[in-house]
């Protein structure tokens, strides 16, 4: 776990990405440099009205500009309030929090398995890898959604030079069906020992990804969500059961866990 700071920053830019998705960029954020893919920030809306902080994976940082970006979807009261924030509004951020992803080896095929609002940390991971000399071509960016509108920031992903593989349940974009199907196909057509999988998305998708990785013997990690009162490991409210019978705190033992570690 990283040493977090609790600081007031300001909304610098707000982009509507359609379908209730938004991107918010905060600046100045003193921790931008220390943020790693898989880290998240715990965001406090002013007042008691949205009582808990809300957790959001870091989608991008610009250490030079002191900027940090999150991408989210409106799903409830907190995210609705966030969508109404305006540039200049102050926001308190606690972060960076959590244990980040471990990067794959350079020669490995990296399979990003993103679903819905699970894509932001994988975007950060892909970009970070590339900046560290990974070959974008060896990054397979599987991105599933119900429909085309759920697969957001497509041009941004493509611009990275990764192999972008959109999948939609209704077939309105990319291949039709669940995202795990083409993932499985890919692994079957490649050396599983040379693949590494990174998953983030809805529970069902993570469950399938975890099972499929275990079954096919592909190592990797998944990033989980849980209700998070504190985000720093003191409340024990965010635990998930582990396969070894114990509990782990998603906020600091995770949110990134190894394939097979969590009893999903």
């Amino acid at each position, binding site marked *: 776990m990283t040493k977090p700071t609790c600081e007031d920053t300001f909304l610098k830019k707000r982009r509507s990405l359609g379908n209730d998705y938004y991107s918010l960029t905060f600046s100045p954020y003193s921790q931008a440099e220390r943020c790693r893919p898989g880290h998240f920030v715990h965001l406090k809306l002013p007042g008691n009205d949205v009582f808990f902080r809300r957790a959001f994976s870091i989608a991008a940082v610009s250490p030079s500009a002191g900027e940090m970006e999150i991408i989210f979807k409106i799903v409830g009261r907190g995210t609705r309030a966030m969508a109404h924030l305006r540039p200049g509004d102050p926001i308190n951020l606690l972060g960076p929090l959590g244990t980040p992803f471990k990067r794959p080896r350079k020669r490995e095929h990296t399979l990003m398995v993103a679903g819905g609002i699970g894509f932001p940390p994988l975007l950060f991971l892909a970009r970070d890898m590339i900046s560290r000399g990974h070959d974008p071509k060896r990054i397979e960016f599987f991105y599933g959604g119900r429909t085309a509108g759920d697969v957001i920031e497509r041009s941004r992903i493509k611009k990275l030079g990764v192999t972008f593989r959109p999948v939609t349940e209704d077939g309105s974009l990319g291949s039709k069906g669940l995202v795990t199907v083409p993932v499985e196909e890919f692994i079957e057509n490649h050396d599983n020992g040379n693949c590494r999988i990174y998953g983030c998305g809805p529970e069902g998708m993570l469950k399938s990804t975890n099972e499929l990785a275990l079954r096919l013997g592909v190592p990797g990690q998944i990033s989980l969500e849980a209700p998070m009162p504190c985000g720093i490991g003191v409340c*024990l*409210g*965010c635990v998930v059961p582990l396969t070894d019978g114990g509990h782990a705190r998603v906020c600091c033992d995770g949110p990134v866990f190894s394939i097979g570690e969590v009893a999903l």
Partner: protein
Amino acid sequence: MTADLGITIAGVEFANPVWTASGCCGYGEELARVFPLSRLGALVTKSITLEPRLGHPPPRVAETSAGMLNAIGLANVGVESFIDEKIPFLARQKTRTIVNVAGSTMGEYIEVCQRLNDVEHLDMVELNISCPNVDKGGMQFGADPSLTEEVVKSVKKVFTRPVIAKLSPNVTDIVEIARAAEQGGADAVSLINSMVGTAVDIETWRPRLTNNTGGLTGPAIKPIALAMVSAVHSSCRLPVIGIGGIAGWADAVEFLLCGATAVQVGTAVFVEPEAPVKIVRGLREYMRRKKLRTVNDLIGRVRKYG
């Protein structure tokens, strides 16, 4: 003139009256990454039981209006691991350590406190006889004056340093329980623990906690806690430690005015981990502005209507 924030309870001196509440600061390690624990008057650990406990399955927390419900279920590492793995860290911190103890039986309280009596670097124990989230023990003790008296009395026999009894608000007359604790030889009482509450998901028709009910905490319950602190202070000679919904320095001042000698900050730590530090700072500033020299100039000084 600088205000003196120091207080003394049962002969133990505290640098200031702002403590963190049990279950809201773990065993100190995580919070120490956010601020130096020396800023705290004391740290009260998560409840320790004889054996390690996993607690209830998730979901075990839920957000409510200006508060939260929890049914963690006394998840903790157990007294042995606590002593081996957690005490060494706490011993290095320049703050008072108060170990909160819970049990399902009278014997468990006694055994845990007996073990703790051998531990240096531990200033007091706080007996959690008020946890609403376990089937046996916990609140049962704290709702019954004679059990309260007995558990305190038994623990006082095996634990030689001061003992705080932590009281439940889920009772008809908290003053009666406080007096029983006094009778049993408690050195102080702390109140309140959480209030029994629940919430239901109207889409799934499921309770929001696997334990069906949980404990309500946070600003929502502050007025209740304050009234109980005031009542206990007025009718019982023990020092009172005020807990419940304290989020800012002004809340702490209210509790002191109502008779608390110290306060504990719980849920607010989740929302703002630096809350205790800000409360200390705000309290010092307030005392300076009001020209108060010591915390005693505040304790119990509410000017009630006649």
